């Protein structure tokens, strides 16, 4: 009996388009559908999904299911769970592929329980065995310290794929027929009242940036003259972020200082934290300064391909196979020189500053 695969996506809360990661997951769904000879259904959630559906008209599906309306404009557990459950039941899917967005990460494990199925998150690849078609998912355990390949007996199996792991599907937009599902009344005790973001010139987290710049606690410690230079460090780092268009990360020891009443970089929060107890961002390149590169921090660099570091200690963690290049030097001096070189380039290039996510 052929399998049913459901590609589930939501439109971004900013408008009626699908987030980039959705096209990557659609690419994986289309590939698996062909490989397994399965049937592909597409499910969409959002206030208005018509424009998004047209962009994926050529994906080779016979059914596009949707739950739409003002109740689904924002991410709320009760409404999103009801919508996803209705789509999954209508599609009668064995395998449900969805992007690992914050909206779906919040809700799809609970939906798996309602469907008497199972869910796996943070999956980095999903392959079908060439001989027997058995599905195998790869994901990390212990915060990127152990990589596993798993399979599941239970169906439906909801798999949330991490962004950046598959090539995005591309195809010509076209007209589509959407089957709109209606839902029974669900609880609306929670109201989403808005999005809180830093001022645009203070936004330091840029998921689409090519470079991750990580600052360590050394920026706030006493320097060679026996004094701290926190304001100077702030200016150097912010100037660099503007000039290089990079995203900012921090080590735990640095972001924790704000809660311990020590000298702090004012723009550094727990949202910037990278590592064992922080995030694991995906950027092609990473540059670390004043950070020792110990294992709990470096596990957050698992998906950063090219790595360079600047540190005064030639025996720091970066030197032990964790970076491609370690420069043993004063980070203040290096960054001041680097800013002087990058700033003219940034001023002449309109693309130096990336769009915020």
């Amino acid at each position: 009996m052929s399998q049913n695969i459901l590609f589930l996506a939501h439109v971004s809360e900013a408008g009626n388009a699908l987030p980039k990661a959705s096209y990557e997951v659609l690419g994986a769904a289309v590939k698996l559908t062909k490989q397994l000879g399965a049937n592909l259904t597409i499910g969409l959630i959002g206030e208005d999904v018509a424009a998004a559906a047209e962009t994926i008209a050529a994906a080779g599906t016979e059914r596009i299911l949707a739950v739409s309306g003002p109740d689904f404009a924002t991410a709320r557990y009760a409404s999103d769970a009801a919508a996803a459950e209705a789509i999954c039941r209508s599609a009668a899917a064995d395998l449900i592929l969805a992007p690992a967005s914050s909206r779906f990460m919040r809700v799809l494990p609970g939906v798996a329980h309602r469907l008497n199925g199972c869910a796996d998150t943070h999956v980095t690849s999903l392959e079908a065995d060439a001989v027997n078609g058995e599905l195998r998912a790869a994901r990390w355990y212990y915060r990127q310290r152990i990589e596993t390949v798993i399979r599941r007996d239970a169906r439906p199996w909801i798999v949330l794929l991490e962004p950046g792991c598959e090539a995005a599907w591309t195809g010509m937009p076209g007209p589509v027929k959407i089957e709109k599902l209606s839902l029974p009344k669900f609880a609306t005790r929670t109201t989403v009242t808005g999005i809180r973001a830093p001022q645009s010139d203070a936004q330091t987290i840029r998921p689409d940036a090519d470079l991750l710049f990580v600052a360590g606690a050394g920026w706030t410690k006493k320097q060679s003259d026996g004094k701290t230079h926190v304001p100077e460090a702030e200016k150097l780092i912010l100037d660099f972020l503007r000039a290089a268009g990079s995203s900012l990360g921090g080590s735990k020891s640095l972001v924790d200082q704000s809660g311990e009443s020590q000298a702090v970089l004012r723009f550094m929060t727990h949202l910037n934290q990278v590592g064992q107890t922080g995030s694991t961002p995906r950027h092609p390149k990473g540059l670390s300064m004043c950070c020792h590169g110990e294992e709990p921090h470096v596990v957050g660099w698992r998906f950063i391909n090219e790595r360079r570091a600047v540190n005064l200690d030639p025996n720091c963690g970066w030197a032990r196979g964790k970076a491609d290049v370690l420069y043993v030097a004063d980070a203040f001096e290096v960054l001041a020189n680097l800013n002087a070189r990058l700033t003219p380039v940034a001023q002449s290039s309109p693309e130096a500053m990336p769009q915020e996510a």
Partner: protein
Amino acid sequence: MTNGYHIVVCGSVVPDPLQTLEPVSTPTGPALKNEMMLPAVLDPWAAHALYEAANLASKVAGSKVWLVSVGPKAKLQQVMMTIAQRVSFELVPVDASASGFADSHSTAALLAEAIQSIPGLDRARLLVFGGWESASRGAGATMQLVGERLGILDQFQGVDQLRVLDDAQPDGSFEVLERIEGGRHQVSVCAGPPALLGWATGNLPEPRNNPQIGMANMRTVMPALQKAKSLPLPAGGLHFLSASPPKQQRQTRVVKDLSPAQIAQEIAEWIGK
């Protein structure tokens, strides 16, 4: 909130982040080499949830905090010696595996059952807290599964802040900040308990050890640990085909003899490639 919240925090033990972890094969699936010998800590996100729970309980009179923890009894006892000195809570232990390789669906079933067995727990005042992920399984799924089993439809993940809107109101409504993409927060208002919150880091510093709190907690922690039920954790149809540490080891070029200007030039060229 006139009667206070009943706050149940779900949290277990994980290996100390500074330890080297090596997977080994066992008849029941992968495990960590010398797992019982590794020093353990309370999972960092669960710890944030516990500190936030204690902070909320201290602000809203009549509130009470429970810590429901699934883990080997000996490990729980070791970790409680430290955690119990920081904030007041009543421990509800379940003696079962705390392995990251355990299935989140099975763990959620144990947690939900333990919560339902707490005597005197008032669902109309119930807030279930936990980490939005763990440093072991890192699934970001277990709390949602617990919530579904308890029939809680107001769920929040990646929470950094909970603010009670008006202490005098009997409904206990509150505002929640959840992390979303791009370093932003989604702001929601919930009409009150029951609700489930998976915490990110929050904004509170780690509380200092207080021996008096420790003495008071240990009066209930030790008897609870002695009475803890030992339960199996079924695999739940999850099969591990392989488990291995990453093999990537870089040949680091250590540059000691360049001036800051030369280093800056080299980095600028690398960024521009």
